[in-house]
């Protein structure tokens, strides 16, 4: 266990960083943060490194965006123009809304200074003197904690003018969402922040060219920016010692559904489902038949040994026909009808479709919701599944933004592995399985 990449939480070399202080009393205060090495990474970067060196370090670490798409963070930062004389912006995407995902929330609530420090680092690297944290409106506690932390940071000189005597100024603002999943899409988020409807924008121009308020902008997920703090503090090599190939570092995995100890677990990238579910989440409360591996948009996989032993990272999950996504694992028990579960998700995407483009508005929010709803109620007809698959083809890859695809993939996954349950619905007009009450 002490050679090769660190791919297990049991590896003695592994140490929790992102969630090291989550849940501890007063972890959200500046005093606590400072007494645990807080703002040392920012001080180091601002006083000893150039912005390009920070970007280089992040590139070298192999960090990829933790919001779901997995785009290399250092590369994304390097797209920002240099010395263009314009205001640049860094935005923290704290609009955590993907069903099954709740990892960023506890950083915001229990360790907000970690998020602030990540923002300072990113702001320094991309030469942004202003940052916005776009936090989903429902995260009231996270918002309160963030605002208090920012106030503390300003009061003690960790935000504002001339940080650490480096000459670098950084102002940080918090903007609350108001209930729209689509605002997690970076261009929709910018529209929302600017006071427009949260419709996604055209790309190009990309945010790095023309983003928030028309200025060069980079948007990163909370976990991504928190990871940067530790990359700068401990070095890219430390980060890259965790995980396989192109999936490096630690990851916040989340477990929901009937596990004994559902929650958030910080583990090295490449940890297996089996370790996460059985070693960390305490095993399952009832028989499980399927896993949604990385938030609701990732295609579900059967609960088999093969899948349980699959490392949870970008490449291994792609091999199994699914995705790492946000690392939000949802367990689907035997007693729950897959059609019912999928209909719930499709309904979710339908509700959250912004309505801008035809395939999503009419295809996802209109047709898919109606047809799956009909199927779920036992009013499906023979041929419906073929029709659904044909219409999935007409949606997938054809919409304006990834939301429609995010609605297509779970349906595809369910049809691939649990087609018989759909067929049962059509033939028998009812679910293949009937569980009892799930409400305690």
């Amino acid at each position, binding site marked *: 266990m002490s050679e090769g990449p660190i791919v297990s939480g049991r590896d003695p070399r592994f140490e929790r960083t992102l969630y090291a202080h989550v849940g501890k009393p007063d972890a959200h205060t500046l005093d606590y943060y400072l007494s645990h090495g807080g703002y040392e990474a920012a001080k180091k970067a601002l006083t000893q490194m150039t912005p390009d060196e920070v970007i280089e370090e992040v590139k070298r670490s192999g960090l990829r965006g933790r919001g779901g798409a997995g785009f290399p963070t250092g590369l994304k930062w390097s797209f920002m123009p240099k010395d263009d004389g314009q205001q640049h912006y860094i935005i923290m995407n704290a609009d955590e809304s993907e069903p099954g995902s709740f990892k960023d929330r506890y950083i915001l609530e229990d360790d907000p200074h970690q998020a602030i420090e990540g923002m300072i680092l990113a702001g320094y690297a991309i030469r942004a003197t202003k940052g916005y944290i776009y936090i989903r409106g429902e995260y009231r506690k996270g918002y309160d904690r963030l605002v208090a932390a920012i106030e503390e940071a300003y009061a003690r000189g960790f935000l504002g003018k001339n940080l650490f005597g480096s000459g670098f100024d950084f102002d940080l603002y918090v903007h609350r969402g108001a209930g729209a999943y689509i605002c997690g899409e970076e261009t929709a988020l910018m529209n929302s922040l600017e006071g427009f*409807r949260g419709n996604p924008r055209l790309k190009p121009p990309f945010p790095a060219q023309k983003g928030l308020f028309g200025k060069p902008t980079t948007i990163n997920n909370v976990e991504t920016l928190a990871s940067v703090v530790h990359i700068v503090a401990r070095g890219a090599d430390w980060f890259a010692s965790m995980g396989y190939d192109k999936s490096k570092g630690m990851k916040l995995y989340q477990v929901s559904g009937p596990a004994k100890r559902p929650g958030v677990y910080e583990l090295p990238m490449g940890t297996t489902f089996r370790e996460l579910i059985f070693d960390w989440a305490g095993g399952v409360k009832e028989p499980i038949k399927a896993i949604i591996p990385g938030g609701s948009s990732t295609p579900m996989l059967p609960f088999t040994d093969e899948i349980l032993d699959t490392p949870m990272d970008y490449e291994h999950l792609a091999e199994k026909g699914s995705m790492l996504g946000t690392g939000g694992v949802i367990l689907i028990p035997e007693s729950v009808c897959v059609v019912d579960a999928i209909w719930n998700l499709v309904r979710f995407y*339908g509700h959250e479709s912004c309505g801008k483009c035809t395939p999503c508005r009419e295809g996802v929010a209109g047709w898919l919701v109606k047809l799956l709803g009909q199927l779920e109620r036992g009013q499906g007809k023979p041929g419906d599944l073929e029709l659904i698959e044909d219409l999935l*083809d007409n949606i997938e890859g054809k919409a304006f933004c990834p939301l429609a695809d995010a609605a297509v993939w779970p349906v595809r996954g369910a049809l691939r592995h649990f087609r018989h349950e759909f067929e049962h619905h059509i033939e028998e007009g009812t679910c293949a399985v009937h569980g009892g009450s799930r409400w305690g």
Partner: protein
Amino acid sequence: MVRLRINDREIEVPEGTSVLDAVFHAGYDVPYFCSERYLSPVGACRMCLVKVGTPRKGPDGEWIKDEDGRPKIFWFPKLMAACTTRVSEGMVVDTLADEVKKAQAGMVEFTLENHPLDCPVCDKGGACELQDRAYEYGLFEKYYTETQNGLKSVLYTRYAFTRRHADKHHKLSEFIVLDRERCIHCKRCVRYFEEIPGEEVLDFIERGVHTFIGSEEWPLPTGFSGNITDICPVGALLDLTARFRARNWEFERTPTFDLTDAAMSAIWVDSRSGKIERIRAREHPELNEIWISDAARFGHGWTKEGRLSRPLLRKDGKLVEASFEEAAAFLAERLAAVKPEAVGLYLAADGTMEEGYAFAEAARVLGTPHYGFENATRFPVSTLPAASFIDLLASEFALVVGDPAEEMPVLYLRLQEFLKGITPAPRYFHGTPIADLRLEEYMPRRPERLATFAAYPTRLFAFAGVSGVYAPGSVAALFQALLAAMNGKRLPEVPGVPEEAVREAAGRFLEAEARTIVVGADVLEDPEAAELAGEIARAKGAHVIAMPPAANARGLELAGLYPEKGAGFGEAGAKAVVYAGATPPAEALKGASLKVFALPQLDALAQAEADLVLPTKTYYEKRGLVLNAEGRLLELRPAPTAPPEAMDGIEALAFVLEALGRRVPARSVLEARTRLHERLKVPLELPEEGTLFRPRVRLPARRSGEAGGTLYLRPTMWRARMLRDERVRRALGETPLFVHPETARAEGLSEGMRVEVVTPYGQAPAVVALDGRIAPGFFQLPGYGRGTGRRVGFRILVPSGGAA
């Protein structure tokens, strides 16, 4: 230029071209709903998905080659929306692949999922983009369903859910109705309002499948709203003036030009059974693009009502129908008593150049100094060299004195483009780019490019870096001050305008490299101001766009109808008058013993005063040349709606001259045009889009005609005759009489008080509207095209009972 391949055709297009335009340029078709010329591409409808690939360069900087040694094409993993994808060197586009066809059919199916199939009762039927595209690109395998009686009927979608139900008759204004079920969410109308007139009065409400078009402003502000009925790809936004008047294929479509204002927008006149039912914008890229004002679009109702088809002769004090022979005999008898040099010949502001020539020539033949045209300004507009809207777009700074939104609405839209820094788009084989990637939603308008002054705060004020309200009559002082500021001299006082505003406007004017001065009726009615504007333009270098209140002012002045010494249109002096196409204020008829009118329909003055009324055509029904404010020569084409006996101005004039026994200068449009050709080198044949025609003209300004009263008549895009239509009256509401609160107090008037205002043009009701931003001491009233920019004498009658 960029070279690329569309299917089998190699083409070259300018950099920045969208794939959509490249496809059309290559002669292929691709369906689209959300893209529209002159609007920003948004990629929302996903109808224009095509297969796109590009070559790539290797690390050595050379193209990566395929086995045949040609640049290897790397296809994008997904189909791309052609409207929002930029062309690149060596790109390959496939619009005919099976996957493209499947995607297009799928998208049509999605679009039809919630679109009602009520085409048989839809005004858009037969002219509907969705109908066409569904037919061309819809499900290529046809699906049928069997009805109860065993007949087969076609299925447009492969599933049959209850369609979304929504408000089908949602009136947005007196002119526009929205059918929310038919809306396909292309967002053209929403984008139009924000991008073109700069009014964010429509938006999507709710989201997802519940999204609908809505507005919190009721009614939609009039001015430019009607254009959304043209650009709606389906029957969701419809013109209420034409609602259920005809099926699209039943209309006679006449391409001509609008003569409501001097911009002369290109229009389609849609008529049926001899009546004008609908006006639509016609594309003219240099002139009005695809936009027209609401007045030009919705103001046609008057043409239908009370049209004269026979002469009316006053007998025993009453006007009665008479034959042309009777009318001729009557004229001969009565004209014999009048000296030829005492005859006055007057033409409407929308008279053609041929008519103008005929009238001017007839006046010369008769030896009378009394002639002219309606709304001729005291300073002849032709004296200012014309500039085009394209010149404005090439400028960096504009000084606008007047109210373009009302005086020349299309220019107001061009000013919006100018504020955003938009220059004319490249032209393709298919014309204007359908997806011009230079355009974006919410493009910032740059207020520093504009300074504007007017006698009241205009719509343009909201977009200007510098603005100021001058007191009516002090526009010459404004130009003196501007010139003084430019020359570093002491500034004379301009009533109402702070010195700072003048200095800033002058400063910005001088800083800019290229400039345009826009002047309206206020300036043209004040020869000193107009001279100064011309001087600034000459001395400092600027284009001038003048907005004359007479639509064809430039054409009629060129044709020789600008009066010099005698009584002009609306001025008393002639003993016998012929008014063609328009009637003057009543006092102009003082001392005239014979009053002949040539009108399409009676108005109150003709009813009371005319000795003879000849039936005439409206400008929609005439052939002839007109010269717009830019000096663009255009040819009117007649819509088939005139009563058979209706004459044009030339025929009416010939009728009068023959009765007099005098030589007729021209009997037909062709004859008059030939004379114009001989004298002025006016072209005999014109291209469809017209041509710039700017001979140098120097006419003396008229020093007469300034009444100098305290009622200032505001410019309006609406014309008095349009108010005959009840719908227009409802839309415009009660006429406001604007007055400064101090002045109101002094006069015993209060906000909302209903009064009657007696002006030279008659008596009309108005409602007192207090406005602290306008100069005290004056009253301001919408002129509806009569006396625009002038100060006239008036009386206010407060009905007993007083305030409302």
